[in-house]
């Protein structure tokens, strides 16, 4: 009764992954932080914290609050900036035998483009993920990711300067995510990842104030899974590029749900914070599920939802 090991390999716009499980940006540091808990060569890819042109201080503290089956974060995209990233973090990343994806963002179009240019030059970077859920400073703070034209402009600007697969990450805080998905696909996204966090708030009735110094924060974790799953389902059906599912994935079962509705890969965020070994358990769980169901290639499962 010995069964062959099921193949979990998937492909994202030419990028071959040993399995569809990777971290979500901002919940995995720059990778090295997790090396004591997790074999970085067991996961499909490594994903970095979001990088910007200049170092960014982020928001004042408190930056996190727990909610029912979720958490709010208002880290504010604190990061070392692209130059320090190249100097201090890339040397470690290039030793890994796992694809490295760098998440990045800007507040203005030219910032996005400059970072993209710098990332193009780094061989150790296998793909990039563009976070368009940031306020557009030029357009008075509206979020790039909620405006199809602004999003398209950023995506095509970056696409032009970039020599690697481009993943564009969508925010769920929109009326119709398929509009955004089509806009970024048309302007050059090779892969779409969704979703980022839902904007939320927590208040403290004892201190009569908002929990987070920043006021609002991004909601992540199991609480958002139904919304994320719905959006991934919609986006998969709206575009023809591969989609990475994100939102509340804690277990192999959760990951299998996103794959079932058609995501080619998944990102694990909050779960890494709760359990640094989460992704390893998820990979094992997916493999076990495939064995139990007689699935010998995960691609048979992807998008196999009966409707």
């Amino acid at each position, binding site marked *: 009764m010995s069964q062959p090991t099921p193949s979990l390999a998937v492909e994202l716009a030419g990028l071959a992954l040993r399995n569809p499980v990777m971290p979500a940006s*901002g*919940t*995995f*540091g720059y990778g090295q*932080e*997790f090396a*004591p*808990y997790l074999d970085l060569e067991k996961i499909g890819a490594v994903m970095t*914290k979001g990088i910007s042109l200049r*170092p*960014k*201080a*982020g928001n004042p*503290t*408190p*930056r*996190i*609050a*727990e909610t*029912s*089956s*979720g*958490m709010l*974060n208002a*880290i504010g995209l*604190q990061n070392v900036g692209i130059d320090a990233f190249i100097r201090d973090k890339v040397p470690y990343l290039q030793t890994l035998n796992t694809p490295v994806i760098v998440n990045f963002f800007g507040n203005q179009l030219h910032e996005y483009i400059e970072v993209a240019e710098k990332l193009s030059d780094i061989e150790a970077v296998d793909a990039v993920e563009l976070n368009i859920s940031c306020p557009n400073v030029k357009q008075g703070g509206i979020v790039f990711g909620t405006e199809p034209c602004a999003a398209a402009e950023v995506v095509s600007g970056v696409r032009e300067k970039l020599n690697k697969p481009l993943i564009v990450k969508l925010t769920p805080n929109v009326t119709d995510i398929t509009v955004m998905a089509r806009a970024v696909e048309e302007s050059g996204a090779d892969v779409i990842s969704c979703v980022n966090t839902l904007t939320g708030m927590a208040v403290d009735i004892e201190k009569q104030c908002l929990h987070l110094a920043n006021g609002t924060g991004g909601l992540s*974790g*199991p609480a958002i899974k139904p919304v994320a799953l719905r959006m991934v389902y919609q986006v998969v059906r709206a575009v023809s590029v591969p989609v990475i599912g994100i939102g509340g994935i*804690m277990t192999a079962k959760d990951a299998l749900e996103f794959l079932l509705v058609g995501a080619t890969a998944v990102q694990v965020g*909050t779960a*890494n*914070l*709760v*359990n*640094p*070994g989460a992704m390893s358990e998820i990979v094992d769980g997916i493999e076990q599920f495939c064995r139990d169901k007689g699935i010998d290639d995960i691609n048979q499962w992807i998008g196999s939802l009966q409707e």
Partner: protein
Amino acid sequence: MQNLKTVILHNREIAPGYYRMAILAPGYPQTAKAGQFVMLRVQLQAQPLLRRPFGIFKTGTLPPECSGMPPREFVELVYKVVGSGTELMATLQRGDQVELLGPLGEGFVATEDENPILVGGGIGLVPLFKLAEDLCRQGRKVRLLMGGRTRDDILGITEFERLGVETYVSTDDGSLGEEGLVTAVLERKLAKYPGAQVYACGPTPMLNAVHAICATHSTPLQVSLEALMACGVGACLGCVVPGKEHREDEPDYLCTCRQGPVFDAELLQWPESGGAA
């Protein structure tokens, strides 16, 4: 630094609202350092979602339960019930499962000083126990200034004294020891031992006051900070505290969970200089 799926050895109330919990933790007696902490996943279900950070109170080894079995290494925590996570912890019993991540962070650095002064307020006494153990073992003469609102907040006094620590108690309501703040005692001790190494852990206002006194006396200070933490391993940047040189455009945030929780006071911004520890 490991993530253990393990079990509780005991868990009991030691003072109103304060509990002491021992968790089976192979390796901790050898590796855990004074001032380090653990992230405890209180139950394996979804609520509460995040782990909770707790200072390491003690580590040790119990004799094997049955002959032929290895001895049982454990870590002990002391915690105060303040919210949903600690409420749930208080209901746990011997044999219940938890997940333990640690030992984490940077602990206290025992300096050469012969007359170290430890200052602890309430639950801030917890990480000082292991430090006192280390310092006593090295033959130092340890003074511990213990503060709290009331006598119930003065934890483990006999255990500290059994180590040979000289204890000085102050309570806000005078229900034990001196009435008043622990800082009054600190002033007197520093007058007597100028330049003594001070180690402090407790609520932020106490730390601010301790820092102000130490700065005036130009005496070295290590403080253990608290912060809201999500990951405990430096990944989320939820727990940062502004470093001495921190400015908006030239951020110098320190991660409490990785670069702390114990910091040399010199590395931090303190109220007088515009920030808050």
